[in-house]
């Protein structure tokens, strides 16, 4: 079985090609970014605690909203899912490692450079990016601070990392499955990641093209997005959202996979409608390419375009609904227990569905004329991303951590973390629906007096949510350092190959492929 252990010292991490090491590094990195992005968010919420300018100037406020978005999307959520993919996909398909281990090392190690570069812009003359995470031209070109060039370079590196990661995941899933592991036997987490990886390969180059055009406009005298030179600022938005809409599904499809693994375990009942889950995921992925302009209902598209994008967007509700119904039917007549991963998964289903409802409302173009660019949108996408993507990641960590480190986490602490997060999250983001409907635009450092009460509540919730995550860090470290020894199966009869190997998972697993029933 050739079971040699890891190398020693820092070299182990720098040169490693082991999917478990790389998975851990991705997860730690994404957690660090999550805290950093969280601090940016707390600066925003602190300033918005009451009307008036108290703590920061509008210039800096705009840098905070921009960096919060960029860091959370590209630094926290995406690397966390890649980390989970690294840890889990080889174990789930019965492969000894990722298909392209050397590239795997690269795709991780360029990330810290990208984010060091991005963060360093905050200290540059003129400040960091201040044009929103959507960086609409010409605010991000003609009118951008000089640091925008570093921002562009950082985005290129992140894109390269994502593309390499996706190639690796696709190659692993398609080539390294243990004999007998047919596509329709793969766990849903593997399926959702396979589809996500294709989305990434399709749209990251579009993002790269977008920032390259910006670079040309800024430094080489072109006018892609400059109206005065014959260019088109609306083109920017089409290109950006052609990337951006699939991007939001990139951040949620793996979450669907995680929840589809956890709910059956704690309902003690097989997942309902496995095949329809796969088809629903594929339909969502397809539809995600033809709905991008619903982010642009107010740019003044012709009515035919407006209607097309409205109908296509509404259509996404169908496969998404199928998924939610399947999860609930999986619970129905099961035998449920509510350990921390299950609590996070149930909260996922409920709150993601609420985010889906506000999404459906936003899809209605005439109503979107009122919702667009208000806090209603902010509430919507935080409801799909925080209890969506982030809660699924928490659920995954609690669910698989005993497998990774061999120790059980403390259930009481896990539950406390859940409830603190759950309350913090809802206190933060629910009031945003109200201020949004009442007319508060997003991305403003100061607001009219009628929005004061709800903003105050939201800010308090944000601090609660933020501090709960430090508590999470404590729980994870405590678990890694000790705790009750986890069994091989960890849970009661969980499904999947990863539960057939010892806990903690040995450094090398499945060097000979397992037999698949």
């Amino acid at each position, binding site marked *: 079985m050739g079971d040699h252990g890891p190398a020693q010292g820092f070299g182990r991490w720098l040169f490693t090609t082991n999917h478990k090491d790389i998975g851990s590094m991705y997860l730690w990195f994404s957690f660090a970014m999550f805290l950093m992005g969280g601090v940016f968010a707390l600066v925003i919420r602190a300033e918005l605690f009451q*009307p*008036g*300018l108290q703590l920061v100037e*509008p210039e800096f406020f*705009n840098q905070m909203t921009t960096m919060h978005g960029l860091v959370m999307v590209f630094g926290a959520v995406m690397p966390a899912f890649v980390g989970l993919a690294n840890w889990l996909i080889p174990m789930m398909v019965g492969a000894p490692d990722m298909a392209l281990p050397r590239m795997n090392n690269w795709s991780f190690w360029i990330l810290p450079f990208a984010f060091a570069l991005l963060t360093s812009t905050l200290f540059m003359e003129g400040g960091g990016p*201040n044009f929103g995470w959507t960086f609409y031209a*010409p*605010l991000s070109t003609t*009118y951008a601070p000089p640091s925008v060039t570093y921002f562009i370079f950082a985005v290129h590196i992140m894109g390269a990392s994502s593309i390499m990661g996706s190639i690796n995941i696709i190659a692993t899933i398609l080539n390294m499955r243990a004999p007998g592991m047919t596509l329709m036997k793969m766990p849903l987490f593997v399926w959702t990641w396979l589809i996500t990886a294709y989305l990434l390969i399709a749209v990251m180059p579009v993002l790269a093209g977008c920032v390259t055009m910006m670079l040309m406009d800024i430094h080489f005298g072109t006018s892609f997005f400059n*109206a005065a030179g014959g*260019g088109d*600022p*609306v083109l920017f938005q089409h290109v950006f959202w052609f990337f951006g809409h699939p991007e939001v599904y990139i951040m949620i499809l793996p979450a669907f996979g995680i929840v589809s693994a956890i709910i059956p375990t704690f309902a*003690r009942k097989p997942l*309902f*409608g496995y*095949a*329809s889950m796969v088809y629903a995921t594929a339909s969502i992925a397809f539809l995600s390419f033809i709905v991008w302009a619903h982010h642009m209902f*107010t740019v*003044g598209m012709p*009515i035919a375009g407006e209607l097309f994008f409205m109908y296509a967007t509404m259509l996404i509700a*169908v496969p998404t*609904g*199928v998924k*939610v*119904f*399947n999860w609930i*039917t999986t*619970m*129905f*007549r*099961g*035998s*449920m*227990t*509510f*350990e921390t991963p299950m*609590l996070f998964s*149930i909260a996922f289903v409920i709150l993601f569905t*609420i985010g889906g409802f506000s999404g459906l409302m936003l899809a*209605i173009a*005439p*109503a979107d*004329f*009122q919702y667009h*660019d208000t806090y209603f949108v902010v509430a919507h996408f935080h409801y799909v991303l925080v209890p969506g993507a982030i809660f699924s990641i928490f659920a995954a960590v609690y669910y698989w951590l005993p497998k990774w480190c061999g120790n059980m986490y403390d259930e009481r602490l896990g*539950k406390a973390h859940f409830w603190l997060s759950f309350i913090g999250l809802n206190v933060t983001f629910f009031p945003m629906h109200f201020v949004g*409907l*009442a*007319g508060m*635009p997003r*991305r403003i450092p*100061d607001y*009219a007096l009628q929005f004061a009460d*709800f903003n105050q509540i939201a800010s308090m919730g944000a601090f609660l949510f933020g501090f709960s995550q430090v508590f999470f860090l404590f729980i994870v470290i405590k678990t890694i350092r000790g705790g009750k020894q*986890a069994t091989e199966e*960890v*849970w*009661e*009869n969980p499904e999947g190959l990863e539960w057939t190997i010892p806990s903690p998972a040995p450094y090398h697993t499945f060097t000979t492929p397992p037999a698949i029933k």
Partner: protein
Amino acid sequence: MLFFSKRPTTKSLLSVKPFVVFPLLAMSFQAFAKSSEVVADEAQRWGMNMPQGVTATSNEIYDLHMLIFMICVWIGVVVFGVMFYSMIMHRKSSGAVPSKFHESTIVELAWTIIPAIILVAMAVPATSTLIKIYDTSDADIDIKVVGYQWKWQYEYLGEEVSFFSNLTTPQDEIYGRAPKGEHYLLEVDEPVVIPINKKVRFLITANDVLHAWWVPALAVKRDAIPGYINDVWTVVDEPGIYRGQCAELCGKAHGFMPIVVHAMEEVDYQQWLDAKKGEAEELKLAMSQSFSMDELYARGEKVYQTNCVACHGPVGAGGVGPSLIGSSITTGPMNGHLSLMINGVQGSAMQAFGEQLNNIDMAAVITYKRNAWGNNMGDMLQPVDVLNHKRSL
């Protein structure tokens, strides 16, 4: 193997029994229905919902919003109802034995088709509203709206009336040195005035970056994009003052460029328009007059405070723009200074003010800068000088 099965973990989630929960839920729904008026009032005070607005369109959008919202609520009640039912009834701790079923073609088809039908039901009213909103034909009045960093310009097409609308909330209120007024951040020096019961068409564009012109009570929101002219329309039913804000991130003072629409009876509107035209005439006359240093300085200070503080700071010490104290321009040759002010600086936030400021304001603000904050140049500029300079370009 059964690692967790011995733990009484389930108790902590919801230990209430279903026969208690359901009557309770029903009661609270009833109570909710009765007190719905009270709730509605409270909601109004806290600003929890979309305003119904004062136009047919805004009412239609409000109805659409409420319709979709209620459909979502009912779907939620059913879906979450089933979910909580199983979470309460099918728990291991109460001895539930799991079933084994894991697919059903009929059920899966049903919950694909039924939502699709609901969606069609939503799409129908949405489409009809959208078609009405897009019909911008036959307007009675055309107003061009131009977004600038960070103010709005309104131009009444065919009427020779044009003006800028700037935020008037004082810096002291923003920085907490003075109590905030009722319309904090939603007040301007000159609102855009429109008559009620007339179809007013706004032609929206921008001069620098993207902005978005939004007035919730009219349910009008449209992006202002350099190089594009977007048209939207409104017919306001009731006279009143309606306030909105820029809705597209446009840089530093994005939160500080409100929109105020003053809708008035047609006769009042005509009076206002005539007065505006008269003002324009007077201004034309004044252009040829000469002003004293004090007059220019005082007027210039006002112009500076409305148009330049955002970037150059209250005492000229800089911000987004450079410091103007002892700068090579403000203390350099008059001609260069004037050219820069008229043409702006290409590719920077410094706009071409030649079209934005009239000749008197231009002369005044230049005179002010050259003599304020210790610049003490001692020279001044007259409106005619500005005119001559523009002619010579």
